[in-house]
């Protein structure tokens, strides 16, 4: 018979690094990342799945980390905004196209919503065929689930189109 636990030891590969920690079973993934693993790049906005700021990838798929329990990601691979850029092999990092596009298009103001937008957008763009031009409907679908309290949506959508363009160039 499966035990009913109030605390669990979990092993999660976060940004390529296996991490072990023991968490109360009620711990949300968002809090486990920030408090137990000290990865504070994942921001916590509404804590009930509305704002999208806490979006991370679990096994490559974007999910709201405030709507997943930490115990539920035992044995999975989690990617947070800290894991979005690639190592360049010389001690530096190469930004992901969505990060590059955010910088170019001034798609962040206060920056609170940015980690969620970056993760959602990276996964959304990576799931599509990079050789085709992105449509406005696709952009809306990708960014539609995230809120920006500075209301900087015009530049965020511009960055999404720009990132799709960068990924198209890279694929050519």
């Amino acid at each position: 018979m499966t035990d009913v636990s109030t605390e669990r030891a979990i092993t999660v590969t976060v940004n390529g690094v296996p991490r072990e920690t023991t968490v109360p079973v009620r711990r949300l993934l968002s809090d486990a990342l920030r408090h137990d693993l000290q990865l504070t790049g994942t921001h916590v906005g509404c804590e009930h799945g509305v704002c999208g700021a806490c979006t991370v990838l679990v096994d490559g798929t974007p999910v709201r980390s405030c709507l997943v329990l930490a115990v539920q990601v035992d044995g999975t691979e989690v990617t947070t905004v800290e894991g979005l850029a690639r190592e360049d092999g010389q001690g530096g990092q190469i930004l992901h196209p969505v990060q590059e596009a955010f910088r170019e298009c001034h798609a962040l103001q206060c920056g609170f919503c940015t980690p969620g937008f970056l993760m959602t957008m990276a996964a959304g763009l990576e799931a599509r065929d990079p050789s085709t031009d992105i449509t406005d409907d696709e952009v809306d679908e990708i960014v539609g689930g995230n809120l920006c309290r500075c209301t900087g949506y015009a530049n965020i959508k511009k960055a999404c189109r720009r990132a799709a363009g960068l990924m198209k160039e890279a694929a050519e």
Partner: protein
Amino acid sequence: MKPAPFGYADPTSLDEALALLSEEGAKVLAGGQSLLPLLSMRLASPATLVDINKVPGLDTVDVTPSGDGAGVRVGALVRHAQLLHHAEAAQVQPLLARATSNVAHPAIRNRGTTVGSIAHADPSGEMTSVLALTGGSVTVATPEGSSAIDWADFFVGPLETSVHSPAVVTDAFFPALPPRSGTAFEEVSRRKGDYAVCGAGVTVTLDEDSRVVSARAAYISVGLVPEVHDLTEAVAGRPVAEADWAAAGDLARSLVDPDGDLHASADYRRLLVGVLTERTLARAAKEAADR
């Protein structure tokens, strides 16, 4: 806020899950996209969460294209995203993909389950109404055995079903779209992906001379439980091009009894029922004619 303390178990068989659910205050956790907000807002504080994600055999979409029992059976762990991208299921019952594309946002659809949202019985959920409109049913497993429950006997009130713990809804069955039929689904919401202020799903069936023999609709965020309204009398026997879809919209407005709330007044919802009915029926009829 954070969830109140609870116990957690992740059984690896249905029998074990049902045994755990027999304890006082135990609750099923599947996708968690409705349950976790309720926990975090402390609107619910179950003693134990029984996570069914490790129970085998619940994550499949079974499509029967024709014959007896034609339709789509969706297992309890099938995520909205999985159903949305299931081409074979969309062919047999197009409402599934059309409705799931309106469920929240991609990140929620990756995690939330279709059967979970039906078991949650939220009148603003899309899939409850689709289950009703297609004349579907759910399979419920209890320690005494498994049985099918028709949609009409399943939904009792907002967030309330006729099923009580210990029980697990193991699948939902959506019958196939009949021949010479078309469907459409549309919502109006304040922001993209939000709960619908009002939504409509419809099916239109034609006879061999392309005259309307059936027009039915179910609405989202209208009424306390899913309702299916037969609008055939407004358009019966008319060829698709001559059918008065606005009359069907008027009829629909007279049949529904929406509530007003923070998001929309009852009158606005009733207006939207008429607009969405007219629009979706015309589209569904065109699809039926072209099929």
